[in-house]
């Protein structure tokens, strides 16, 4: 046991005896799903002061809208400008960010997909670098996003803040499971863990899929483990309801795609807890949360500058619909300068009585698209993304016609060829035998603002 504990400390350096008991409780739980992944939080003692300071800062420094970039942002851009090759390439020497902010060229997912080495600051220390793979379900790029464990840990207090605004104060200690992240995909990682950022409280990522565990087992797992709150996407929460899991958490935090009002009401009525819509991406971290009175999304982090842009990258009038762009952030390997998220909203500069932070209204472009297999079974875009990820490509669009047929358009990577047979085989497994047309288009998305494409679309069947 001691050897296992010591080995675990590689991944969870701040693991103590109580944390280890929680870890073992989850890991060895008889009703647990099949855990298929090993992961820790990699947080070190030296990271904790910044975490505690950030927790205070989020409460004390609510973001306030201002028409021009704030001083902290300009100082940050000036400090990083000589270190970030892509910025240097796009901004001539002597460029004045304060005077000419709106003329700074925007950046987008394609910059991360194809030029990450030009974005990572030249002086960044790489030894603790970690990598997240994103599937690009909404905007059509597969990405490898580098990050730092200490920066990832700062997302915890942002989530705590959103929960507290809904009156939810979970117990963050090694005697409780703080959170279970729910998925509902044919294939995904599942693991149990503890978070030092939450005093080694328990955490598990589970998958509501027959391949992972049975419905009965899942029901009993939730009842016995009793997580304080759940995170997941609307598709997963719909599966949670569908699997008739009765466990009532203190809150459900929904991310990834648009949460419909109907599903939110249904979940709230069924589980008697707030369902909190949370806006976050792997590239940016958390951006905004929906408050308890349903009045748009309030900006969460104080160290992010939000703009709403027109297709040419100029700010639109307050209250006009445009693309959300962010600058700043906490990821030391991915400094964001006017980064276009691909999501659209209207910005209301005024906060509300609960929170003075600017708010986003009509946040959209994240509506989930469910495809249908030949058998009529739903197919999640994340499962399609797993197949697409085997190929080197920049963007893709998948359209399912009303008759079920599929048309996949791929903008290939610069060097690699697309393995059409591998794609066909993968699609056959997911969809059964449906007609599939594969088109390679090197220009896909190039004529659209920010290169944005609608990655997943489905034609409605008549009637």
């Amino acid at each position, binding site marked *: 046991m001691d050897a296992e504990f010591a080995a675990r400390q590689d991944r969870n350096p701040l693991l103590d005896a109580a944390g280890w008991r929680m870890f073992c409780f989850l890991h060895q739980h008889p009703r647990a799903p099949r855990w298929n992944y090993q992961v820790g939080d990699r*947080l070190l003692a030296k990271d904790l002061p910044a975490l505690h300071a950030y927790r205070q800062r989020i409460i004390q420094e609510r973001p306030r809208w201002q028409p021009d970039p704030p001083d902290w942002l300009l100082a940050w851009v000036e400090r990083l400008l000589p270190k970030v090759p892509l910025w240097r390439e796009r901004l001539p020497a002597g460029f004045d960010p304060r005077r000419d902010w709106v003329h700074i060229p925007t950046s987008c997912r394609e910059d991360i997909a194809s030029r990450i080495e030009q974005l990572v600051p030249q002086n960044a220390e*790489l030894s603790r670098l970690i990598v997240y793979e994103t599937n690009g379900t909404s905007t059509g790029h597969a990405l490898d996003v580098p990050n730092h464990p200490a920066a990832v840990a700062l*997302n915890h207090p942002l989530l705590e803040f959103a929960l507290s605004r809904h009156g939810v104060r979970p117990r963050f200690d090694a005697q409780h499971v703080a959170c279970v*992240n729910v998925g509902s995909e044919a294939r995904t990682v599942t693991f149990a863990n503890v978070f030092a950022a939450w005093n080694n409280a328990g955490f598990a990522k589970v998958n509501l899929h027959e391949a992972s565990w049975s419905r009965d087992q899942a029901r009993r797992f939730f009842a016995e483990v009793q997580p304080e709150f759940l995170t997941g996407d609307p598709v997963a929460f719909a599966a949670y309801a569908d699997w008739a899991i009765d466990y009532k958490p203190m809150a459900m935090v929904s991310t990834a795609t648009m949460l419909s009002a109907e599903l939110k009401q249904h979940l709230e009525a069924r589980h008697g807890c707030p369902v909190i819509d949370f806006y976050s991406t*792997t590239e940016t971290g958390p951006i905004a949360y929906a408050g308890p009175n349903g009045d748009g999304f309030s900006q969460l982090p104080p160290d992010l500058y939000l703009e709403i842009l027109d297709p040419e990258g100029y700010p639109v009038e307050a209250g006009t619909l445009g693309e959300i762009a962010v600058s700043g952030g906490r990821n030391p390997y991915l400094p964001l300068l006017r980064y276009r998220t691909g999501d659209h909203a209207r910005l209301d500069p005024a906060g509300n009585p609960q929170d003075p932070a600017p708010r986003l209204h009509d946040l959209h472009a994240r509506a989930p698209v469910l495809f249908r297999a030949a058998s009529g079974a739903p197919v999640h875009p994340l499962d399609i993304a797993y197949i697409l990820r085997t190929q080197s490509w920049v963007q893709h669009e998948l359209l399912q016609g009303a008759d079920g047929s599929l048309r996949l358009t791929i903008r290939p990577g610069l060097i690699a060829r697309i393995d059409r047979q591998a794609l066909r085989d993968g699609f056959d497994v997911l969809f059964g035998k449906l007609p599939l047309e594969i088109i390679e288009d090197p220009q896909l998305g190039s004529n659209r603002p920010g290169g944005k494409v609608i990655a997943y679309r489905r034609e409605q069947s008549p009637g």
Partner: protein
Amino acid sequence: MSGSNMQAPLLDSLTRRLAETPSVFLAEPRRGRRGQLEVAALVTDLLLTLGGDLLTPTQATAHTPRDKGERNRARLVAICCWLLHDETFRQRPELASPVETLLQSGLNELAVLIDAERFVTDLERREELVRRVLDWLGLCPAGESPHQAADRLGALDSVERERVLRATRARQEAARARQLKKQMQARQAREAAAKANREW
């Protein structure tokens, strides 16, 4: 271009002229519905003053920035238009053709490297721009031999300095890119760290 029958231009008066560039020449170049300054009109005006021809529609289009990346070139062209309106150059039909090519393509490299306004606000960049323009037109500043002029321009040359810097930087950045790629592919990095929700 001989320029032999021209009076040699005074360097100081031209750098002073740059320092005193009127704000109208520093206005935002027009692009679509944005900006106020019609750079193509400025260029046409200058070429007519020099005794040259009107711009063709294609040449005029080339002076309208298509995106933010081309904006700085248009700003630099506008500043050069002000500089070349000096009486040293005015009504010299032999300059019309080299001026046209200078404004059309001769400033491209510089515009990528240096913010245009620096050629107004910064002493060294003012001298560089004046010397570069004179060199393009085959002229020497008063009191300097061609050799001295070339030597001094070489010392100020932003493009050449950047070329040397870039060569060094390219080697460092290539090494850095390899290191980053290796680190991003490392097993430990791919195991990432747990996240309480998928998207952050």
